[in-house]
């Protein structure tokens, strides 16, 4: 993490005092830095930030380093320490009156489940397992209490670190009810709670301890004051806590602007030539490959990638087109600024085109010159690396807090595609016709039989699709299964991949075979709104007709049941060439008598039954 980036805007005097306090871990220097920070104006110090700490052990001695770390976020940090080991009591007493910005619960095995330290004196395994379950219940109860009394306050639950000091350590890992298993079980419950409940987050002490625990343990201080951390440990712990709470105040940056040569690969493509670039599974190409993996992961979680390279575009594209180990694709970048203009100009343009502030940008470049120029000309941009060494760049990507956020939403994950689609729509507006655009999406469809593997998604779509839905029958899972269990019934799902990735199942078709005359009746036909206008309905209909043909079916009946929302498909079956049998305001019935297999649209490449998700 980069404390120095956090405190960059503080005056030199304060910055120096903070760095000295952190480096020496001296309480005197921590207090000195805090005093200097309080001399700054409220604007310089940041927003007021009140954090309540509730702990099973004594945090009082380490409040100054915690206050300093939170002040560096920056914030006007105010700490409220609840009485020692009285978590539930405090949560119950302290309701809305004492509003704070976050509540942190910090606990450890020594108080939460001391029996686990001495399993054979405490009824191992049955009794100890029961006690572990009681702790899990306690965690659940505490969350409910918090939500009942202070629902608006973000709650951070610490995980449980393995104790540094305990005997019989080998056996502790050999049984699920022993210490290590018990700790893992409680932690699992804590992760589950954070997954399920909004407003509850994990302060992962367990992860911190795995990295730094033993180094910072002080048994003497624990016995003297029930406070287990050494001086340096206190500062490290405080900074770790501050990083975890920081997203409450500081939004994550949204864009990573990255250089090409000597970053995504080793070497300079325009100089060294494609064949001499270093990228692959051997050293040092594997470092660059790993950098690409990190960037791809950032992209996939919602950080936009922007290419900033001084290159001829043709040269820059070459590795993307023909270097076999390239992981990133040209399209993974939301914008490409490949030209000979100064990078700060390109970055300003990128900010404008994306509609984002300059302070949303992070910049990576191996060139000292480029980084320095960016630093001077656009100070809002965060410069990630400080040397040209690829391993250093990789390390910066691993440790940066620039993209820290406590939740990553579906929207975040789609962000890149949204920006790409937006760019493509622009292309489409300028392009010649719709078909060319659809072809450019490189769509690949797979027709799957409805079965256990895709049933959940199918039922979900049946339950919520409104626009492209011919009959809007809201079947339950059991109803769908009942239809499909009838002999001759056909249930199909269309899975779509395009150049943006796997779009998942986007269309469903369910048809029932009549037991009397052997005709086929279409029960449900729907397409997700994400895939409208791409022609997937044509491909799925073609698949149904093909199957009907193979089964020797001579007639397919279908109907359109109008709703306020599904006007988009009022004439779908007319377009498919079915004959109208009946038409009235509440339904239109169709029949297809001459079963001819229609080829699917030319812009969708059909892969047949790639996975055998056959009915069971």
């Amino acid at each position, binding site marked *: 993490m980069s404390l120095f980036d956090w405190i960059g805007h503080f005056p030199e005097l304060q910055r120096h005092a903070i760095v000295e306090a952190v480096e020496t871990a*001296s*309480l005197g220097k921590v207090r*000195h830095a805090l005093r200097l920070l309080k001399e700054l104006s409220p604007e310089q110090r940041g927003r007021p930030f009140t954090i309540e700490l509730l702990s099973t052990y004594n945090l009082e*001695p380490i409040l100054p380093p915690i206050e300093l770390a939170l002040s560096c976020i920056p914030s006007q940090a105010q700490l409220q320490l609840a009485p020692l080991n009285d978590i539930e009591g405090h949560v119950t007493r302290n309701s809305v009156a004492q509003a704070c910005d976050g509540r942190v619960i910090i606990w450890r095995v020594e108080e939460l489940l001391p029996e686990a330290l001495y399993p054979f004196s405490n009824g191992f395994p049955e009794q100890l397992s029961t006690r572990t379950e009681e702790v899990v219940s306690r965690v659940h109860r505490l969350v409910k209490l918090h939500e009942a009394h202070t629902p608006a306050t973000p709650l951070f639950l610490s995980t449980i670190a393995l104790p540094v000091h305990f005997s019989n350590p080998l056996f502790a890992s050999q049984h699920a009810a022993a210490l290590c298993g018990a700790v893992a079980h409680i932690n699992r419950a804590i992760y589950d709670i954070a997954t399920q409940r909004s407003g509850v987050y994990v302060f992962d002490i367990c992860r911190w301890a795995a990295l730094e625990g033993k180094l910072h343990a*002080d048994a*003497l201080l624990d016995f*003297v*004051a029930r406070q287990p951390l050494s*001086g*340096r440990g206190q500062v490290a712990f405080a900074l770790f806590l501050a990083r975890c709470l920081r997203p409450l105040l500081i939004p994550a940056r949204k864009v990573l602007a990255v250089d090409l040569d000597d970053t995504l690969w080793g070497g300079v493509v325009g100089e060294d030539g494609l064949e001499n670039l270093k990228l692959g599974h051997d050293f040092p190409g594997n470092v660059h490959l790993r950098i690409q993996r990190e960037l791809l992961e950032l992209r996939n979680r919602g950080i936009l990638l922007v290419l900033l390279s001084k290159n001829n575009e043709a040269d820059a594209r070459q590795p993307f087109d023909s270097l076999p180990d390239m992981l990133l694709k040209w399209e993974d970048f939301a914008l490409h600024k490949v030209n000979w203009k100064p990078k700060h100009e390109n970055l300003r343009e990128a900010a404008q085109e994306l509609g984002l502030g300059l302070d949303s940008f992070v910049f990576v470049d191996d060139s000292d010159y480029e980084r320095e120029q960016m630093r001077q000309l656009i100070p809002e941009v965060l410069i990630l690396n400080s040397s040209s060494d690829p391993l250093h760049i990789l390390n910066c990507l691993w440790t940066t807090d620039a993209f820290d956020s406590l939740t990553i939403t579906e929207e975040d994950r789609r962000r890149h595609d949204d920006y790409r689609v937006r760019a493509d729509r622009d292309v489409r507006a300028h392009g010649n016709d719709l078909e060319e655009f659809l072809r450019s999406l490189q769509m690949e469809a797979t027709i799957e039989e409805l079965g256990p593997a895709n049933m959940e998604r199918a039922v979900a779509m049946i339950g919520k699709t409104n626009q492209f839905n011919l009959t809007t029958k809201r079947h339950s899972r059991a109803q769908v299964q009942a239809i499909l269990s009838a002999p001759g019934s056909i249930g199909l799902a269309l899975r779509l991949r395009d150049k943006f990735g796997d779009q998942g199942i986007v269309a469903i078709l369910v048809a029932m075979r009549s037991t009397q005359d052997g005709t086929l009746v279409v029960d449900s036909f729907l397409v997700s709104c994400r895939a409208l206008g791409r022609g997937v309905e044509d491909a799925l209909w073609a698949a149904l007709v093909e199957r009907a043909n193979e089964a020797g079916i001579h007639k397919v009946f279908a109907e359109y049941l109008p709703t306020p929302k599904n006007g988009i498909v009022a004439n779908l079956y007319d377009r498919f060439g079915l004959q109208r049998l009946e038409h009235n305001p509440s339904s239109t019935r169709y029949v297809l008598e001459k079963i001819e297999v229609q080829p699917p649209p030319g812009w969708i490449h059909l892969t047949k039954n790639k996975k055998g998700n056959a009915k069971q």
Partner: protein
Amino acid sequence: MQSSDSLRELLIEFFDLPGSTPVEEITQPAISKWDSLAMVQLITELQNRFTIEFDLEEIQALRSYQEIRDTLARKGVLSV
């Protein structure tokens, strides 16, 4: 090895005392802030600054500049 002057500075900074405070006045009874919490923090501070670990007996002998100086000298981390 650090000098006893550096210990004096440490204590003056730690308890936020006037720079001119004579060492004889740096004692637990004379400094109201020197409560049990401060004692714990002081132990932490000394262990950190001198890269040492106290034993149980030694932490009983940290109640004044004089005592701390002698304890640190015995541990061989302070020149007197």
